[in-house]
């Protein structure tokens, strides 16, 4: 009926989409360009000597090369250390969030006990606090426990975040009460019911929380910046923004390697990511 209208709409929608795919294209092409070509093209913007005109981006490299990528992965142990640091901060955090959060979410969603509404309200308030508010309390504890400047200073406060509990509770809400009653009739205790019925059926909620949690942890800047003083503990997110222009090609390759896991997890987990975002907006 209104094919024509859709044609216009699609064209209009392409503009913001190009802003997104364009950025990813730039990242990919930049990582495949050699140091000399990059320095020549980007030099003006980065204040390198001997350049007069304006910078341009090598959208299609003159001489595509895997050399920077090979150098990065084969000869740059510092990069590996930082990539490993990022993994070491992100994965235990997400794993901990699920181990600690899933039982709590199950209790809020499917068990009835005095104080439930009040406690859940407390979780919602805590979930809404920005880092500016939580950093001082976190610091006081981490300092008292002697954990400042260790990976635990970033991992532990992240593990006990209230947000994943909220998302997973929304996921468990989909488990029908009739199944729980059936399990109880079969003589299953609360723990068995949780493990045998709750966990398998709550997988979408758990995946939603994991995808959101991973993206958040992989991107984190504030927490490592505040709680980690030793540069050898720093994740990529602190190092990449201050890369020197002398190692442009390496920096581009490193940027792509940091981007890739987050984007891949996004593409595979998009359905759960959307579910998670929707859950964060559902009224209680």
């Amino acid at each position: 009926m209104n094919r024509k209208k859709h044609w216009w709409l699609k064209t209009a929608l392409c503009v913001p989409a190009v802003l997104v795919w364009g950025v990813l294209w730039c990242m990919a092409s930049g990582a495949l360009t050699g140091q000399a070509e990059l320095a020549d093209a980007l030099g003006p913007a980065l204040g390198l000597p001997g350049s007069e005109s304006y910078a341009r981006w090598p959208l299609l490299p003159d001489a595509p090369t895997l050399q920077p990528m090979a150098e990065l992965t084969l000869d740059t142990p510092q990069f590996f250390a930082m990539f490993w640091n990022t993994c070491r901060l992100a994965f235990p955090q997400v794993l901990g969030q699920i181990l600690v959060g899933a039982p709590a979410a199950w209790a809020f969603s499917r068990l009835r006990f005095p104080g439930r509404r009040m406690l859940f309200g407390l979780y919602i308030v805590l979930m809404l606090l920005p880092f500016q508010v939580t950093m001082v309390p976190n610091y006081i504890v981490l300092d008292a426990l002697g954990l400042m400047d260790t990976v635990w200073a970033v991992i532990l406060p992240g593990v006990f975040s209230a947000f994943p509990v909220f998302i997973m509770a929304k996921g468990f809400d989909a488990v029908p009460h009739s199944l729980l009653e059936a399990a109880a009739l079969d003589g299953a205790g609360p723990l068995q019911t949780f493990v045998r019925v709750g966990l398998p059926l709550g997988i979408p909620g758990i995946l939603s929380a994991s995808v959101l949690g991973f993206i958040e942890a992989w991107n984190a800047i504030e927490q490592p910046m505040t709680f980690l003083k030793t540069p050898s503990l720093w994740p990529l997110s602190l190092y990449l923004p201050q890369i020197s222009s002398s190692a442009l090609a390496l920096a581009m390759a490193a940027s792509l390697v940091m981007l890739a896991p987050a984007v891949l997890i996004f593409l595979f987990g998009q359905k759960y990511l959307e579910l998670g975002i929707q859950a964060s907006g559902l009224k209680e």
Partner: protein
Amino acid sequence: MKKMAAGHCVRKPQREWAAYLFLLPSMAGLIVFLLAPFAETVRRSFTNALGTQWVGLYNYQSVFHNEAFRLAAGNTARFLCVCVPLLLAVSLILALAVRALKPGGRAFKTAYLLPMAVPVASIALLWQVLFAEKGLVNGRLVSLGVQPVDFMGTGAAFWVLIGTYLWKNSGYDMILWLAGLDGIPDSLYEAARVDGAGRLQCFFHVTLPQLAPTLGLVSVLSLLNTFKVFREAYLVAGSYPHESIYMLQHLFNNWFLSLDMGRLTAAAVLVALVLLVIVLPLQRVLKGAEQL
């Protein structure tokens, strides 16, 4: 005395214990890492830096008289006032457009959501090149015959930050709007059309009023997410930005480096209070809207 309700509503003490056990690890962590130290934070906001001597409201006065705090709080407020309405509008337009395409909208949805996953740090170099004085954007401007702009050295930095923020966060709000739009029953549109309403009238008399509860939610979440704008500011300008994008987190970082606990604790309590004052009435409104 109240009579026990019959059937499955009877509380079984054993199940209650189970619930508390399920909650225990999470609650214990929250108490240790957040609640207890937050109480300590409130206490220390009224004491000297070592926490040994009561100083009344001295820390709060010192925060309020601090130039940098006024600058950061003003910038953050300005950012909220400009960014949240823009974000709400842009994401709503995207949601309506993606929905109008129905099956064809899927690819666009992915595209708009994707920046959420792009780590700020990984695109830092690209952004530097885009907005440098001799950068890509200025190169394009000059070739179009427009004066180049010093994006990072002037108040233009604020608008770069707004643009970056919209780029990264519109997708999240779009998903929330889409969920709200899906919740509007088709029967309302049919009834409106039977009454002779056109497309625009349908939008203003059915869609917008029905989206009111979603609007409240998206606003609260967007407001809270804008406190994370430090990441984008750090992406655009590193640790030493132009003063128009000097945000609360920059100030907190500085105070943290100098371990100015007096001001830091007072400012944290202030931010928490301001948020409560803004968010709680909004939640009331939401609860009210739900009961309609």
